[in-house]
């Protein structure tokens, strides 16, 4: 049922090595900013934010000795465009097994674009409890914000045009790591 869009590859923005370096830097930044990993919890936004969150958790464990809990968040029920889309989004399970109250939540996603997904994620987290803080980590910030949202941790800033697609590749899903830029035609 997947539509094949007419797309072509323009360039590779991050190689696997660059990707790896960026992820390590983010992990260090999270630890530094939060003065350790003590009350930090990571929440990956379905779909690609989830493996990214797991990897960040592994890296934080390697650097600090403790692995922060990782939750998975489906934001479908919080989207603001549900009256306009013509296809029906499948709703996936949210798994946040730790107590949100008083935690320092770091939301994790692959790309930050308009900010609407991040806003939905904020609403979802807040409905689960009252965290001490919510921070936001993304691999790529591609600009074109429609809401006053910013990421605290960014792998790479990539200015893009609206006809372009930023594709974050993950070993777990695509077999390799990296970031590519594709052009949409027609």
């Amino acid at each position, binding site marked *: *049922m*997947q*539509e*094949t*869009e007419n*797309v072509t*590859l323009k360039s*590779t923005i991050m*190689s*696997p*090595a660059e990707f790896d370096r960026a992820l390590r830097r983010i992990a260090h930044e999270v630890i530094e900013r939060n003065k350790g990993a003590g009350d930090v919890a990571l929440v990956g936004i379905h*779909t690609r934010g989830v493996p990214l969150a797991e990897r960040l958790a592994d890296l934080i464990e390697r650097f600090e000795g403790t692995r922060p809990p990782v939750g998975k968040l*489906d934001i*479908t*029920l*919080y*989207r*603001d465009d*549900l*009256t*306009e*889309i*013509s*296809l*029906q*989004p*499948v*709703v*996936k*399970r*949210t798994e946040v097994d730790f107590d949100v109250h008083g935690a320092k939540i770091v939301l994790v996603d692959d790309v930050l674009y308009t900010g609407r997904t991040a806003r939905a994620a904020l*609403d*979802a987290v*807040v*409905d*689960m*409890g009252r965290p001490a803080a919510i921070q936001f980590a993304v691999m790529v910030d591609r600009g074109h914000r429609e809401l006053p949202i910013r990421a605290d941790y960014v792998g790479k800033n990539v200015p893009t045009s609206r006809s372009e*697609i930023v*594709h974050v*590749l993950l070993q777990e899903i*695509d*077999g*390799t790591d*990296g970031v*590519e830029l*594709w052009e949409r035609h027609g």
Partner: protein
Amino acid sequence: MIGAAAQVPPPPTPPAAAARRHRHLLDFTDWTAEEVVSLLDTAEVMAQVLARPVKRVPALQGYTVATLFFEDSTRTRLSFERAARAQSADVISFAAGGSSLRKGESIRDTLRTIEQLQADLYVVRHPSAGVPHQLARWTNGAVVNAGDGRHAHPTQALLDAYTLRAALTAAGLPPAERERPFTGRRLAVVGDVEHSRVARSNAELFTLLGGEVVLCGPAALLPRELSRLPGVHLTADLREAVTGADAVMALRIQHERLGPKRLPSLAEYVARYQVRPAHLELAAPHAFVMHPGPLNRDVEVASELADGERSLVERQVASGVPVRMAVLYSLLVGKK
């Protein structure tokens, strides 16, 4: 190798979406097993929402749901209204006896009056079969059948399937096949089958999901031609019906409504058709007891079974709201 492009095109936008095939939920005609299982999976997510401190999501913000209950049922109506409000939809209620639902008024005229309020979806219960189907022909909105005469009660069947699927999984017997979760399973439905929309909808749904259904009751209340439906058997013998069953569902008997010409005394009915612990011994070792509610104590089911650990009755009740949330979500979300 550094810098090698994966040449994997990005996933299409929007992700993991399905074309919405159904405008209404009237019965399960034309529904596929896959579509039903998606509803059940969505209901699981909705159950999670209801377990949180804030039992609400904004998914149906801006939508209006109207409940039209030409036949009284506070429980079912409140369940639907809760399902709508938990997703931030607005709710308008019309109940029998209110000035808007007058007896003898053509239902089309009633609909015309109500349509002024521009609801996106109507939840309809009526003592006559077919009213939701008639309304669906006349309205631009969506229609959910909350029980039409003896014909169908699809959300009841969905919550029964949801409850049973979860109970079997919890008992260490998860479905072998996602799309047909009741393959190899047998459901016995006992009671006044002729007058029961719960029996008809469960027979339709359980077999759609791969299972076998045995309908059991006194011959005068067991419509012969239902045996023509695929996967459905009839018997007047309760012991035969429950043998090997994975679940036994007892139906409400309405003795006052049936009268002495249709049914001999209630005592005779209870002696022959009440589900008792001895019957469960003939059923599968894990067999569950179900009832659409409200239960007539010690009539349809012996008290000890109704309250016992094999009883799914409370879980059935609890699953009503998440299942109805999933139905409302699935029918409404999309281009307004």
